[in-house]
């Protein structure tokens, strides 16, 4: 575990009666990818914007790279040291990819070589393309390039893949994975479960302004993910009824597969023996729990593609 780069202590942000961020405390360590996972309106962006010195906090303490976000002198130091991809990143439409990245770079006393950053983000072919002509995925990549150009100690990526198609989303994931390989500290917010699970070293699940759980994805899954599932492909209601007589946790999914929750290996073999007795010859697979199961367990809901809690 590296040194602490972000410390939030009982952080509160209130808008009138609405408590957007409700006494949250957490730390982010150097070199890790830390993910804030939660539905829309959970308080992810508000928290990040407090840490980026874009919004004032109501109460509590927050320090970024050792600097206090509430002190104006410290704010200047924080801004020199962080890189940000804001939610719904946008740049000057008529400027090219290179010009937009250089514009952000020139705001700093020192910045990386623009061509190197462009190469790192695999944008060489688009270097002279106007921003307005880029696809959503490429625009996000330009945003990440702009966040990296100052060679920041800490990078905030706020919902970097929202609204992108699956291919563009995976392209951005590859970029973030590359940042991780380069040893960058990344603070990621997302409402995509898979994104948090694949990319993050640690995940904080945030809902209604409060952190519900925090830890490495595997730790959270072990702690909250529940049982493994034996999936019997192409099963039917009759098979499900037969198995329900012997096992408690049997269900059917939308594809007609029979799902049996199992506690351990012994139970797996008992189910297999039952299938043999019933002369059922179907493909089976074991599903391990995911962050989605963790989220379901903790919040009682799931997050839709649009980021809403259901």
């Amino acid at each position, binding site marked *: 575990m590296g040194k602490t780069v972000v410390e939030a202590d009982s952080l509160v942000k209130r808008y009138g009666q609405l408590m957007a961020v409700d006494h949250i405390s957490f730390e982010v360590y150097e070199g890790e990818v830390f993910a804030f996972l939660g539905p829309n309106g959970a308080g992810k962006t508000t928290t990040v*914007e407090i840490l*980026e010195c874009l919004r004032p906090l109501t109460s509590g303490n927050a320090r970024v790279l050792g600097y206090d976000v509430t002190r104006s002198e410290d704010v*200047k130091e924080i801004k*020199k040291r*962080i890189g940000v991809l*804001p939610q719904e990143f946008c740049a*000057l439409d008529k400027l090219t990819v290179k010009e937009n990245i250089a514009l952000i770079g*020139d705001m700093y*006393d020192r910045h990386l070589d623009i061509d190197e950053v462009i190469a790192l983000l695999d944008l060489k072919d688009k270097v002279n393309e*106007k921003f307005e002509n880029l696809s959503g995925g490429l625009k996000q990549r330009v945003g990440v390039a702009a966040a990296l150009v100052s060679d920041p100690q800490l990078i905030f990526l706020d919902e970097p893949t929202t609204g992108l198609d699956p291919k563009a989303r995976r392209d951005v994931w590859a970029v973030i994975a590359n940042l991780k390989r380069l040893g960058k500290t990344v603070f990621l917010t997302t409402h995509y479960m898979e994104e948090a699970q694949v990319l993050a070293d640690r995940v904080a699940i945030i809902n209604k302004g409060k952190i519900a759980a925090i830890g490495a994805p595997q730790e959270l899954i072990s702690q909250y993910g529940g049982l493994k599932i034996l999936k019997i492909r192409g099963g039917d209601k009759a098979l499900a009824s037969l198995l329900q007589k012997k096992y408690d946790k049997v269900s059917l999914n939308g594809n007609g597969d029979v799902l049996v929750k199992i506690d351990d290996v012994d139970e797996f073999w008992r189910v297999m023996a039952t299938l043999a007795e019933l002369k059922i010859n179907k493909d089976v697979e074991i599903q391990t729990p995911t962050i989605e199961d963790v989220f379901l367990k903790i919040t009682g809901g799931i997050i839709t593609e649009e980021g809403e809690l259901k």
Partner: protein
Amino acid sequence: MRALTIFKAVFKNWMRSRSGLFFSILFPVLLLLVFGAIFSGVGSSSKYRLFVQNLDINATDATPSELSVAFIDALNSTETFGINEIPADENATEYAQEVLGPLGGNMRILVISEGFQNDLLNGTLKVRVGITYETMDMYYWYVEPYLTDSQKSAFQQGLAQMQQYNATIPDAKASLTIMLDPADSSATIVKSIVMSIASAFNYELIGAENVVEFREASVTTKHYSNVDFYVPGITAAFIMTNGIIALTATTTEFKRRGIIKRLSLTPLTKLDWVVGNVLCQTILNLMLAGIMIALGWVVFNVRVIPDAFSIALILLGSIMFSGMGMALSGFIKDVEAASAIGNAIAFPMMFLSGTYFPLEIMPSYVQTISKALPLTYVAEGLKHAMIYQNPEGVYINMVIVAVLAVVFIIVGSLVTRWKEK
């Protein structure tokens, strides 16, 4: 330094934007062409339409009387009127309405009454006889001591006969009736011109000569055309609209799209941001002013030449209005509101600051309001610099504009919000 980077980026972005270029440069240029064409009279006769009905017709041959025709010729000779004659047997207003058609236009009818020539001749004769009588009477008073009794008697007899003859001349006056629309803004001008011509006609007939000589001279040292006087006002007006409407809308759009928010996450300061944008708008305005004046030279043959004072005022005016635009955009959340608020401020200011219409013709309360409007000082300063070559008139306006420019930039920096709280 960061302000310079912002300036370069925003300027480049603007120059590559067709709509930005259209509204900042081409639209003002097109409007200048329209206004220039109106004020310079290019392609129009620039005459007041006047319907004339001559009822003074000779009974014998049904031709108009000589003097009524001469009067109409006198009207024509001024080259001020486009005259449409209405036949004597037509209803004048109905005829004029029919000619003007559904789109209307101003109805101005002059009716020359029946007996115009006779009344004019009689009236003229009566005046002439009267003048002759008075002259002779005065002469008699001077020479009486030197006359013999018989000479005195003959003189008195002659004067008495002259008086008797004058009493036999009918006392009627030649009558002209002018019918005007109260809503016609040119009615007073038309009436004055017709009255002047009638007086001149009158004097000519009685043989009077002008004893007052009237000379015309320009208030400027150079000879300017009509459109020259509008160049400073139009230039000032577009510097204002570019600053208040275009810049406000653009920066509000930048805010809406999160561009300002992204830049705010860097070490860029609000002052850098405001100064960069103001600089960009100022350069655009200098370009615009240059194009407009060059176009004025080529198309309308204007003679105004911007001197160092004019350029300095254009520069300061641009900074002031751009600062005002930046200050406004600090309060505005969306582009639609930016456009509406920008227009709501810019358009009344345009018409209340003497850019298109001289302040002298405005009611006194408008003149008072105009003193509170920044555009007044830019327009007045430019008029003093470009037209009157009056440095004193430039200095005072320039100082006011410079002070307001600093105030608006400071306010703009203070109220700029990277993001709502």
